[in-house]
């Protein structure tokens, strides 16, 4: 109730200030495709004030009444200026045109000066078209692999999709596809991302200073928006690669009113395996494939209303069989996401976005040998409702507020097993139900010309509700007991305030200092038994036993641009504290949670991370790219792990250097390169061996006390575009003229790990030989995953 009162006072004060002002508002779109432009600038030079379009291309700028020349700018588009009489409110929509020259440049973002002026700290926007010109692993353009090249972000392992942001775990990243949560962003055990670059419009990573409209995760937000589809004309684009192909079709539902886009991708690994494994082979029928499908529709119901329907479905299917042993395994997993959004413009200052999303991640494992069959399932399903308002009371304020609620259904692990006709008692599947809700408000406002602040507050709540059975495990002499909650019973309630704050102090046009603080609650957790990320990792909610993770982060940064914003540089220092982190108990095994609660196998602890990040970027010119360097340290302390001693997180990396470069030789030839150097990951290896019943056994030393060799790799790419124009004889003039081609294509040659560095994927202790024969030895072995891998992809568009 107090919060509502606060909101009321807050907005009535803005309303009284707005009497002598006028507002210009509208939508900015791409003239070619009709796609909304995200982050386009609307700027009044005479007042030195501006606004920015939101995710739906909407802008609103309120100024003193008068006549102004207003500029409209967007990266890769021609600037547009027009004089407006703002003696009264004006509604102005504009379709911006592109400049071919700029489109081909490899840059992260061409919003010149944005990094100096905004309050955003620890945020980076990636341009998908630019990502496509960087080297791609096996020809698959990968958004997450590009994110891993940014300072403060590191990969889980060689080729892996999981990423760690500033010492946080992979579950602490909120990955959103059109506002729907993606629980597993990986295909093929983590080597490829679920994001098909052809269907993606924009990518925004927030690794610090998280705004109040985001929550539920502690480390970062990766916001991926799908293309809306061309509402001017039908277009087809696609690509043929070494292991997969993809195709995208887009076009108007009704010209300038609505559009659709459908994009599909599939691998051929199963077909290759089928060809390689003859029918007579005992392994015939084994194979792997993944596919994914993106669909999006949007329609303008009127000048103030627009609806969007987005869908994603992706599936991995692994099959392994041995006829000889009468053994077969099937392992499918995948995500399904659906999102419905309704944009409504209440006035030229108030924009509403109503969002309903459905997100589903399921993993299944089935095995059969002779008469014995076992099937395991796990998954998580979310149903989310959210109402988000953007309010633009004046040029000095940009307000967002809203509410959201999520209904989670978790199935951490359910097993069924039988032998012939006997069905084994594998217990009741552990299903967990919970509501996660939040209310938030934030205001980005200019306190003075130099000081700009974004202050927000988020209040989050979490209810674990029945039905639920709590198993209480006794020791050897005490029997296990259990008690049951009925449908709708509240098992546990948590809530908390999450203050968010970031600010910018402008030193001059080229220098600023930024600072940020955020406090986050995280009510869902990812638990993993393995040293690498797998689809078998289990999502688990907070319960009476597993408390919500809590974390805070403080960041300070110095930002500087050089040579008329052609070069951007920044240094950021951060410190992060984390409570109630979870891990499996030492020695926990898969399947131990049967007839039990998974959280009975968990232990809880705290962690902290700190570091400094340097980032230097060149955005324009023939040579573009960036250099990032991070020095960081991240540690954990769990009373029940490592004898209660502090230990480094498995992704603790002291040094991380990335260099990314693109060079455009001419309109047809582009070169890309990326280099990464990182301190090796930590891991736990046995420090001693002993013998029991003639079995050689290992005793492991301190947790994560061994460090692998440093990781470094160079990737190169070259993209050859076809000629944009073809010659045509003009019968009227009798001259040969150049006509722009409808069908465009390019060849992209990538080389991963150019100098064939044997990077460590993991280490293990091997023992081989026979004591009696004198050739027994124990060795530490390093497994390297990927040698030099060239790939060729043909991309087309018409």
């Amino acid at each position, binding site marked *: 109730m107090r919060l509502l009162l606060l909101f009321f006072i807050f907005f009535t004060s803005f309303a009284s200030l707005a009497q002598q002002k006028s507002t210009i508002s509208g939508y900015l779109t791409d003239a070619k495709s009709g796609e909304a432009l995200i982050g386009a600038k609307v700027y009044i030079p005479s007042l030195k004030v501006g606004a920015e379009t939101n995710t739906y291309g909407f802008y609103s700028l309120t100024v003193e009444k008068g006549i102004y020349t207003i500029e409209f700018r967007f990266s890769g588009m021609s600037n547009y200026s027009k004089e407006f009489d703002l003696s009264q409110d004006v509604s102005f929509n504009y379709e911006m045109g592109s400049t071919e020259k700029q489109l081909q440049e490899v840059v992260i973002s061409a919003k010149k000066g944005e990094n100096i002026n905004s309050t955003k700290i620890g945020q980076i926007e990636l341009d998908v078209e630019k990502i496509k010109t960087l080297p791609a692993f096996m020809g698959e353009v990968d958004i997450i692999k590009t994110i891993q090249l940014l300072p403060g972000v590191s990969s889980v392992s060689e080729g892996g999709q999981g990423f760690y942001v500033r010492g946080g775990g992979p579950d602490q990243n909120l990955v959103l596809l059109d506002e729907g949560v993606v629980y597993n962003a990986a295909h093929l055990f983590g080597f490829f991302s679920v994001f098909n670059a052809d269907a993606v419009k924009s990518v925004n990573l927030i690794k610090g200073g998280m705004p109040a409209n985001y929550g539920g995760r502690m480390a970062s937000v990766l916001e991926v928006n799908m293309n809306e589809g061309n509402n001017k004309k039908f277009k087809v684009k696609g690509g043929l690669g070494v292991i997969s192909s993809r195709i995208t079709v887009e076009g108007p539902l009704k010209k300038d009113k609505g559009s659709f886009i459908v994009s599909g991708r599939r691998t051929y690994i199963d077909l290759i395996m089928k060809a390689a494994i003859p029918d007579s082979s005992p392994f015939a029928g084994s194979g792997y494939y993944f596919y994914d499908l993106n669909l999006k529709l949007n329609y303008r119901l009127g000048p103030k209303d627009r609806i969007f329907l987005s869908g994603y479905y992706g599936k991995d299917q692994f099959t392994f069989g041995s006829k000889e042993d009468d053994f077969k395994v099937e392992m499918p997993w995948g995500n399904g996401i659906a999102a419905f959004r309704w944009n409504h413009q209440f006035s030229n200052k108030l924009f509403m976005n109503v969002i309903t999303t459905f997100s589903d991640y399921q993993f299944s494992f089935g095995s059969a040998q*002779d008469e014995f069959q076992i099937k395991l399932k796990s998954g998580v399903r979310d149903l989310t409702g959210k109402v988000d308002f953007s309010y633009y009371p004046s040029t000095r304020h940009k307000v967002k507020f809203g509410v959201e609620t999520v209904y989670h259904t978790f199935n951490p692990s359910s097993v069924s097993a039988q032998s012939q006709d006997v069905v084994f008692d594998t217990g009741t599947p552990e299903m967990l139900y919970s509501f996660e809700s939040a209310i938030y408000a934030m205001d980005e406002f200019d306190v003075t010309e130099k000081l700009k602040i974004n202050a927000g507050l988020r209040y989050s709540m979490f209810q674990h509700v029945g039905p639920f059975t709590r198993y209480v495990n006794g020791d050897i002499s005490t029997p296990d007991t259990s008690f049951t909650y009925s449908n709708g019973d509240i098992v546990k309630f948590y809530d908390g305030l999450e203050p968010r704050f970031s600010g910018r102090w402008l030193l001059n046009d080229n220098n600023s200092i930024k600072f940020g603080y955020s406090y986050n609650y995280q009510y869902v957790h990812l638990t993993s038994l*393995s040293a690498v990320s797998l689809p078998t990792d289990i999502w688990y909610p907070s319960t009476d036993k597993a408390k919500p993770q809590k974390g805070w982060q403080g960041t300070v940064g110095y930002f500087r641009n050089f040579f008329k914003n052609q070069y951007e540089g920044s240094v950021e220092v951060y410190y992060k504290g984390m409570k109630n982190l979870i891990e499996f108990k030492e020695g926990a095994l898969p399947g131990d949670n049967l007839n039990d609660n998974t959280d009975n196998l968990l232990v809880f602890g705290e962690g902290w991370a700190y570091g400094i990040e340097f980032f230097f970027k060149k955005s324009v010119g023939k040579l573009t790219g960036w250099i990032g360097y991070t020095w960081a340290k991240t540690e954990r302390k769990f009373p029940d792990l490592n004898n209660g001693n502090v230990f480094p997180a498995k992704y603790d990396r002291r040094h991380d250097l990335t260099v990314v470069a693109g060079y455009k030789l001419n309109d047809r030839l582009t070169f890309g390169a990326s280099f990464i150097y990182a301190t090796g990951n930590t891991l736990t290896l046995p420090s001693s061996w002993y013998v029991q019943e003639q079995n050689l056994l290992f005793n492991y030393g301190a947790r994560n006390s061994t460090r692998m060799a440093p990781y470094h790799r160079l990737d190169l790419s070259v993209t050859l575009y076809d000629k944009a124009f073809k010659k045509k004889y003009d019968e009227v003039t009798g001259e040969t003229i150049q006509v722009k081609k409808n069908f465009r294509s390019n060849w992209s040659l990538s080389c991963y790990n150019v100098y064939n560095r044997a990077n*460590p994927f993991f280490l293990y202790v091997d*023992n081989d030989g026979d004591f009696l024969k004198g050739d027994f030895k124990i060795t530490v072995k390093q497994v390297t995953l990927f040698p030099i891998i060239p790939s060729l992809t043909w991309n087309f568009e018409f």
Partner: protein
Amino acid sequence: MKKLLPLLILIFPFLFSCSKEVKIDIPGYEEQLCIDGSIETGMPPIVLLSKSQDIYAPTNLDAFLNSFISGATVTVSNGSSTVVLDEICTDNLPAGSEELAAQLFGIPATELANYHLCAYTTLNTSVWGEVGKTYYLTVNFEGKTYTSSTQIVTPTNLTSSFWKPDGNSTEWGYSWASIADQANQYDGYKWEVKRINIGIDGQPRDAFFTKTYNPFFDDAFFDGLTFDFFYENPMSWDDPAIPSEGKGFYHLGDSVVIKLSKVDEKLFNYYEKKFAQIQTAGNPFATPTNIPTNITGGALGVWAGFSPTYDTLYCVQ
């Protein structure tokens, strides 16, 4: 789920390109006593003591055998009788016990005299294994005391055992058994076998019992149920007389003695983790697992009580 780990091991070689030996610093080595003690129904307690070795320590036969130690005081009690076990070493073995000692240490009998390897046991039958009793172990060595206890639980007999050919084969098949698990109690089992049909040397084919690949199981899934299950032939893998199509199987005509032992829950936890470690060593998908000993005082190893029953299977249709 437990089948998932071996599966991932199987598919992983398809993905990675190579592995190579590396020398890398592994901190944390600390010398610890390892106790390998067991007692089963009708048998004396037997205890071997050794010391853990640094991961990069030499691994030749001398180094391995020199890790065994002597000079400890080992006591076993069943609550009413307490006996200090005798230290019996390979250089003063009682006549006729060489084969047993060789099997215990895993070396040829001819090598025994070259080493000073000691085991602790007793001929005092008051502390030999009896069903239903708990046995307490105390080891004093180099000024430290290590203690443990284990129970010999009531055994469960197999309901039946049988052999059937596998797939299209007419002469190779697994050993099958039916068990009626007792309801509402914890039951842990250990499966060992030996073939007693006479070989070409005129001796039974196997002198000692051998454990299968994963010999321990408990009734978490089948408490109170009666069902059939099968086990492989663990001796077949190293038996040159068995052709490749027969690996893992028993041959038509084999005579197999099945030794099914019961264990308590604590012991099962030890062996479950032990075999998980053996089977997942080097697998990146597995958690590094230290085996939870049932010994206090900082030693590694186990003090294990077993209550076996025996069943003879004749491999005929």
